[in-house]
């Protein structure tokens, strides 16, 4: 409307508005306290529902004056209360209003006001504080800066239903971190808030319930306490179960289900507890139904995904409950073509929630298919499922992409899916795009699975340059990405042909390979060793790689065997040595290294059977008689036509040397070992001497 006015007129209208606003502010400075009071009351009536007026008053500096009047001990209680009410009203406006109020230090002033005895004034302050704190622009930390605030708020909980509602609402919005949870917990939040669940006021009940959900989230200590709390002689979990009854308001059912979900995930309730299986899970499935609001469906699906993530039984039950898998397909139908034509408002609403719905559905699918092959099959058979995932992987919204790749990763644990639908839909293509780290972590995990030996996608992925991508991941700062990168390379090298192996070594570079062998992350180290082991398999590969990188590899192996590492790492390293010992020429790298032979000898006498086994395996390879052992040798299969004689002679020499070093005695001892595997292996090795 305003824009249609002519310029001078517009200005005059504006100045008129400002003039009336100015008048309101001026009256706050009247020397007569009675007139000031009347001024504040008039201001209150003027700003209600009028965002423009609110903005004007803030610009004109009403806030500091109101705060001054509010804090002034000489002000009458009535005036102070009215000031708090006006400030509360100003806070109801736009986010900018809230920012201005916070900048004027409204929070400490109001918190100070809570020390007053007058209930009406306290309620007005709390209402304003509530409005300020629930805004996303207010830093929640402001609630926790003064350590006396929380205990005081706890003590105010008994004053009235309003104080209960406002305070619990502040708590539930400001409790964002484990520290916050512990502060509230240590100040008796549970004992103080639990009785409010029985409040006659629905609002108080709801806010109290929300408090419990934020307190219990990923917090074992709080959750463990909650399960033992009694409210009116009834266990808190039972109170929550009652709140999930189907005739209760949806909001209450959903929030109660969240509380129980969080308590369950924090380990305070078993996943096979009736209240989870028979109540919480079906309640959350209902929240995903088409009858619910879009927001509720998002929250329901996310909570359900979280609840059943670690438990296959819950996944199985959910997968048969109320056609959940099919129900979720509906999450992808927003905005629908009907809504586009029919109703702009609806379209707008649908558009807003479309991303949220999609990512929630992906998350839930990921959770559903995490463990059970039948469920994965059911999911992939849902209409257009694979197409939806593939397009989800390329969406602009990071949240959706992340959820889609999580879903894909979950489904990629299925051998059958890897062989069929994954290949049909070329899901690997979007996975190789650049993305933020969080997405890359999941994407590379999925790639790991896609590069498994039997996956038909392996070939096309290789051809599209995945090696470079994975090698670059191993240089990432994020340990998760380094693990996934090297893991995928390890999978790729498994029973790969020479070309691929050479390509991996070339692209990774020996320098990077050895850097990874000293990686602080044990997982990275393990997978790197795994890669080495896969590279060093089949005799010609072993000899080729050892001839070019033998020195460095032997050094690295020595370092690891000497270093402080876990059993698995050492075992893996000994296995690598075993593989090296299987090479024709590579053997000599060990045979000429007396230090290494001593190490192997000592591992044969190690207290851990696994290490003994691996070391014996290595020795067994070293003393192997080529002529009769060819078929049994661990990895040798082809390209073995280098002539038997010199090598056979070599084996005799090696046997002699090892005998001199006392290996035979150890082997002999090991044939008496209690472990049958070790015993067998030692015997096989001994036979080589007899032959």
């Amino acid at each position, binding site marked *: 409307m305003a824009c249609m006015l002519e310029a001078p007129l517009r200005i005059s209208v504006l100045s008129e508005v400002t003039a009336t606003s100015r008048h309101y502010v001026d009256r706050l400075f009247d020397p007569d306290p009675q007139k000031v009071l009347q001024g504040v009351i008039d201001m209150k009536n003027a700003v209600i529902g009028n965002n423009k007026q609110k903005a004007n008053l803030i610009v004109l500096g009403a806030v500091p004056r109101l705060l001054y009047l509010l804090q002034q001990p000489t002000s009458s209680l009535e005036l102070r209360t009215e000031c708090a009410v006006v400030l509360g009203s100003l806070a109801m406006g736009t986010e900018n209003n809230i920012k201005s109020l916070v900048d004027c230090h409204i929070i400490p002033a109001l918190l100070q006001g809570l020390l007053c005895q007058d209930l009406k004034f306290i309620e007005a302050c709390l209402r304003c504080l509530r409005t300020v704190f629930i805004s996303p622009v207010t830093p929640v930390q402001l609630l926790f800066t003064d350590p006396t605030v929380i205990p005081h708020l706890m003590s105010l909980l008994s004053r009235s239903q309003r104080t209960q509602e406002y305070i619990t609402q502040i708590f539930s919005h400001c409790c964002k971190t484990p520290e916050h949870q512990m502060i509230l917990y240590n100040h008796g939040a549970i004992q103080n808030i639990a009785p409010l669940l029985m409040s006659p006021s629905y609002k108080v009940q709801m806010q109290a319930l929300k408090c419990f959900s934020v307190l219990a989230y990923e917090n074992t200590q709080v959750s463990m306490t909650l399960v033992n709390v009694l409210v009116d002689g009834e266990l808190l979990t039972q109170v929550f179960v009652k709140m999930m*009854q*189907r*005739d*209760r*308001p949806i909001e209450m059912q959903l929030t109660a289900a969240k509380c129980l979900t969080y308590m369950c995930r924090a380990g305070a309730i078993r996943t096979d507890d009736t209240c989870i299986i*028979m109540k919480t899970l*079906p309640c959350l499935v209902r929240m995903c139904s088409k009858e619910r609001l879009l927001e509720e469906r998002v929250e329901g699906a996310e909570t359900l995904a979280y609840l059943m993530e670690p438990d296959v039984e819950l996944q199985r*039950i959910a997968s*048969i*409950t*109320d*056609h959940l898998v099919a*129900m979720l397909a509906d999450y992808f139908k927003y905005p629908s*073509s009907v809504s586009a*034509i029919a109703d702009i408002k609806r379209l707008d609403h649908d558009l807003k929630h479309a991303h949220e719905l999609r990512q929630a559905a992906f998350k839930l699918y990921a959770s559903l298919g995490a463990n059970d092959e039948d469920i994965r099959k059911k999911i992939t058979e849902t209409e257009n499922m694979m197409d939806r995932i593939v397009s989800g992987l390329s969406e602009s919204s990071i949240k959706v992409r992340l959820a889609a790749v999580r879903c894909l990763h979950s489904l990629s644990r299925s051998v059958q899916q890897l062989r069929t639908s994954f290949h049909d839909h070329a899901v690997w293509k979007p996975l190789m795009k650049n993305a933020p780290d969080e997405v890359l972590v999941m994407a590379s995990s999925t790639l790991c699975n896609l590069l498994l030996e039997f996956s038909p996608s392996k070939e096309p992925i290789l051809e599209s340059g995945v090696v470079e991508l994975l090698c670059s991941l191993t240089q990432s700062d994020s340990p998760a990405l380094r693990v996934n990168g090297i893991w995928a390379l390890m999978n790729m090298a498994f029973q790969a042909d020479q070309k691929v192996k050479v390509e991996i070594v070339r692209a990774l570079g020996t320098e990077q390979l050895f850097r990874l062998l000293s990686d602080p992350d044990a997982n990275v180290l393990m997978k790197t060793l795994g890669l080495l082991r896969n590279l060093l398999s089949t005799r010609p590969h072993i000899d080729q790689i050892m001839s070019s990188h033998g020195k460095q590899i032997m050094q690295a192996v020595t370092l690891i065997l000497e270093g402080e590492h876990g059993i698995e790492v050492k075992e893996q390293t000994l296995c690598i040595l075993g593989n090296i010992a299987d090479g024709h020429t590579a053997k000599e790298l060990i045979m000429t290294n007396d230090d290494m032979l001593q190490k192997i000898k000592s591992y044969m006498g190690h207290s851990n059977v696994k290490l003994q086994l691996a070391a014996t395996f290595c020795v067994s390879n070293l003393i192997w008689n080529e002529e009769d052992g060819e078929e049994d040798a661990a990895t040798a299969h082809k390209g073995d036509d280098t002539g038997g004689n010199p090598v056979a002679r070599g084996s005799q020499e090696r046997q002699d040397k090892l005998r001199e070093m006392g290996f035979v005695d150890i082997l002999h001892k090991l044939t008496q070992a209690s472990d049958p595997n070790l015993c067998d292996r030692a015997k096989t090795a001994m036979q080589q001497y007899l032959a």
Partner: protein
Amino acid sequence: MAELGAGSLQVGDPALNYQERELNERLKRLYPAVNEEETPLPRSWSPKDKYSYIGLSQNNLRVHYKGHGKNHKDAASVRATHPIPAACGIYYFEVKIVSKGRDGYMGIGLSAQGVNMNRLPGWDKHSYGYHGDDGHSFCSSGTGQPYGPTFTTGDVIGCCVNLINNTCFYTKNGHSLGVAFTDLPPNLYPTVGLQTPGEIVDANFGQQPFVFDIEDYMSEWRAKIHGMIARFPIGERLGEWQAVLQSMVSSYLVHHGYCATAMAFARATETKIQEDQSSIKNRQRIQKLVLAGRVGEAIDATQQLYPGLLEHNPNLLFMLKCRQFVEMVNGTDSEVRCFSTRSPKSQDSYPGSPSLSPRHGATNPHLHSTATDSPTCSNGVTSKNKSHSKYPGISSSSSSSPSSPSSIVYSESNSTDSTKSQPHSSASNQETSDSEMEIEAEHYTNGVADSSSARIMNGTYKHEEILQTDNHSLGNGLPADESDQPRQLCGGNQAATERMIQFGRELQALSEQLCREYGKNPTHKKMLQDAFSLLAYADPWNCPVGQQLDPMQRESVCSALNSAILGKGCECSGSLSHFFLSLSHARTHTNTQMELLQFIHQLTGLNNLPDFNYPFQSLIF
């Protein structure tokens, strides 16, 4: 146990008594509105209503198979002693699989009286089942649909019938599996069927606590209905319950086009009707056309009376045209009917011209196979009532198909004097249509002047009872009627078939045009596909997509068109009246009046009821 039982026979088994008491208490609690003197609840399997391969034991609660079990011809079922009373609102029973026997071919479900017991539930018309071997649901068909998990020894399967929205869902070990069937007919019996030796199942009709929390589900529906009633706008007239009820009844009548009844009601209650009488009649006429399967004419009439309406509703138009195509296959649409020589209806000529006047409406009430009183018509099953001998003289030659037993409902007539309709109905004559309605409306008015609204409904139902007899007498008295002969495509007429094919092309073209203008519409595609699929079968009436030909399917089209004319979205307008309808429609005739009174009680009890959690049963009396 046996010894104990023998010892206590004289004094009565205390354990049994205890169980009996518990059963009574549970049933009373679950179904407080059911008057068991009139509509007893199922309490056990019926030793009379079963196939010979079925053996019963343990107070007729345990069922075992005692046939050969060679193939599906050896299937055997048993029904409960009584059908599920409509007053239950929501009904539930559970079956525990004691043993899956040889192959576990077990079906749990529902069936109407008279359905063949040498079958598993779900295979036949008016029979519904969930089968353990494949987890499929069978909805009156030999081919199942993927539905839920399989079930076997040790599992407890529950079956819940929601008589408010006529759906059914199953549970397995207390977990709801989701809706299995919709549009269920009334008066279904709990049924189980077994097929291989060794199969044993135990029923729980309330003798034991249920594994699934059915009371929680019931409470949700109570809350839903309370909410619906509480949200019903009453405007300024808070507390004026009589006026509210009157306007509700009136708007219901107007919405569905029961013009004369609405007028009479208005006169009797001294209220006013918003909509113009002629407008109501127009709508009614159009509705009748749709329900009679004469969609082409309905489209013409709509275009003429409400120009622009269909142009602005391309989706609706498309839906109507698809229906028209189906009706052509059926042989009921006038575009193909005019070719037909067999049908007595063929003499009627409906020019479909603008000259149609409301007075001589193009409607023949006898054609209303599903008629305006739509929900009642779904009572297909009840045609098997034995009451037919009572009115042997009443017959209708024009009933369109045997699948629509209540095919001559004149819902608008509400005649208290049913015999009056006799001469007209047998005439099957065009002339009767509107004037007859008016006459009957007069009768009805007389009746209503000194009676309560409950009487009105009673009138309808009485009338309906006769309708069902009609259908039977139709079978007996008119051997030449088409219902006795196999139905043929477009009534078996070559020219009609050609016209149908041509229309099919036009429809295809319309679909493509809509697709270009508004983008792809999967619903349209599905509709078209389904309709065209009919032609792929030798006998479209008995094919997988044959359900489309059921006159019942006209109802949704009809209500969509009616709502569009009224300028309302389908759902919102009639939500309360729909509820009203759904509550009253699925009733047996005897208890209708009482139940309606109960319902009105509920409504009037509302002013004491601001709270969602108010217990439901306390409202009823």
